[in-house]
């Protein structure tokens, strides 16, 4: 009897988990389905779910109209660039805060987080002026720096949390064996924190890929990433939902695939602890 209850419960949990999963995924699925419809079918009411004339016309039109490859490569460069640059700064910062905390470490951490509390538009004009005067407007360098800066607090916080899970004794042992600071960080701390660093890396690539305020406001033609590509298909006067869906599908596909393949790593990173 007891076994039966567990089995039923397991089944119920599985059904519930799938239901929630499908609910969350549904908007994306709907976008993908709409991208294969004609514009007339895209707005039809009641909407057709699977039985419509599947067409690739929207993708053809999007290909003809925009330079997808340029937007895509811009997205890759700025999301990878900003994440790697961010990690290079955040690993030493998080190390010092986790292992040699001072009196003000907590305040510094809170202060860093507080920079995320201001709405970005509040600093748009000053940053725009700085970028104009330094020639960084519409450049990949400029965008990489801005995205690195806005994600840095999150990277440091995540790494700080992971590093704190690693017992200081392991590092002490390394020091007693004669490891210097550099060797301690590179050969002892980093390998132990790899899952944590990997999930931070992945999460930041996703955040940078999806960032749609600075990438739209600081670019024009040359450095515009995929967010600008999507924005170019949205229209308040005219029904272009199928084309917009095709553009959106093309923009989210790479990050969706990356997320799919690295889900194990992401989950492992998020539940990581040094002491099992």
């Amino acid at each position, binding site marked *: 009897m007891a076994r039966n209850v567990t089995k039923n419960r397991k089944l119920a949990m599985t059904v519930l988990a799938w239901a929630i999963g499908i609910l969350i995924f549904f908007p994306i699925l709907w976008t993908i389905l709409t991208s294969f419809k004609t514009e007339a079918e895209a*707005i039809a009411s009641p909407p057709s779910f699977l039985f419509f004339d599947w067409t690739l016309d929207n993708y053809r039109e999007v290909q003809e109209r925009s330079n997808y490859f340029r937007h895509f490569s811009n997205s890759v*460069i700025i999301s990878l660039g900003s994440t790697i640059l961010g990690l290079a700064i955040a690993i030493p910062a998080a190390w010092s805060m986790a292992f040699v905390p001072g009196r003000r470490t907590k305040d510094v951490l809170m202060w860093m987080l507080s920079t995320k509390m201001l709405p970005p538009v509040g600093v748009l004009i000053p940053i725009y002026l700085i970028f104009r005067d330094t020639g960084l407007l519409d450049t990949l360098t400029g965008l990489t720096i801005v995205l690195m800066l806005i994600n840095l607090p999150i990277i440091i916080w995540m790494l700080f949390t992971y590093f704190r899970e690693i017992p200081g004794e392991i590092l002490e042992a390394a020091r007693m064996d004669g490891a210097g600071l550099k060797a301690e960080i590179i050969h002892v701390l980093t390998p132990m924190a790899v899952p944590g660093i990997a999930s931070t890396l992945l999460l930041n690539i996703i955040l940078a890929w999806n960032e749609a305020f600075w990438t739209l406001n600081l670019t024009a033609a040359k450095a515009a990433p995929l967010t600008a590509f999507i924005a*170019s298909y949205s*229209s308040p*006067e005219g029904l272009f939902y199928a084309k917009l869906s095709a553009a959106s599908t093309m923009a989210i596909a790479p990050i969706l695939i990356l997320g799919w393949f690295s889900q194990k790593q992401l989950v492992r990173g998020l539940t990581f602890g040094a002491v099992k």
Partner: protein
Amino acid sequence: MKYPALLVAATSTLALAAAAHAETITIATVNNGDMIRMQKLTDGFTKDNPDIDLEWVTLEENVLRQRVTTDIATKGGQYDVMTIGNYEVPIWAKQDWLMPLDDMPEGYDADDILPAIRSALTVDGKLYAAPFYGESAMVMYRTDLAEKAGVTIPAQPTWTDIMNAAKAMTDKSGEIYGICLRGKPGWGENMAFLTAMANSYGASWFDKDWKAQFDSPEWKAAFNDYLTMMNEYGPPGSSSNGFNENLSLFQQGKCGMWIDATVAASFVTDPDDSTVADSVGFAQFPNKEGVDNHGNWLWSWNLAVPTSTDSPEAAKKFIAWATSKGYTELVAEKEGWRAAPPGTRTSLYENPEYQKAAPFAEMTLNSMNAATPDKPSVKDVPYTGGQFVAIPEFQGIGTGVGQMFSAALAGQVNADQALQNAQQLTTREMTKAGYIK
């Protein structure tokens, strides 16, 4: 993962270097059918001007507005040609942000531009932007449903005619709603319609001392009639309907009438997308009996050159091409007369081929000619503009008031309360901005 990224960086640098020999102009534009068509047809321009390369930045209207406003206000110089509305042109020209376009090449024929549009783009006698396409507002209605309901809609209807027709055409059990109007909040959404409707009731936003007028009997009448029509004869959930939502409803045959931008006419009569393409009739924007005002809705998308550009000559050359009579002929030749950008040139409406291809041509022209944005209301007012007030503060105030009116439509507050809130907000903002001393 690192190597492909490097490769990509190297290829894009090479591609940029290869393009560097020609002068590149960057054009910021909106995503609508006519602009996209222009993007496709630019070979005609680049063939004649091999030393000019064109870069396009296409954005959604609100994103574009935010983007180009930031750029022009800080003199960022990111764009050489900007697509802006007739709301921005006079405000920006007065700030010296735009270059005058009074030296257009011979044969451009600026006198051919529709008078209402031309006057909206002229400041101190100088043209500051060239119109690419223009629109007014009119009534689009289903001729078959009107016949079935036994009503006729005159070419110049009054609001009483509209109200009666809406009542007669409504069949809620058959999912047919007599009238579809904008309800989604925003200065360019519900407030564009409601401002025009209020104008046609004899109301105005401000009196000549910039005092808000939402407590006037005219506003009260207009707003109450709007709510009655929408609640009794409108589709459900109309407080979130904008242009696109109504277009979709109309194309699927769910609206008896739709009063909106004239540009919609080409969509609803397009047999590829619209299920009611062959039974659409047109009438002028209604007015209240005895009020000589048909709303004064006038909008145009225009190409302008910011003073911060590095390539003013190339930019002007492009604008002269894109807004010329020759461009209209090019569109007609490639895609038929029906696709010609509407609402900018008198000569287009005199063209018999266009009249034949576009059944909505005559009413569009009538509506545009009837608009007098330099005199928006029958009352004496200190501002210009038709479905908007041409002051920089209007975007903020209009959207705030739009939210209050949308809330009334959704049933969250009553009409009097919404008008009172609008009066308070507008008075407060206008005092803060220094209009009311």
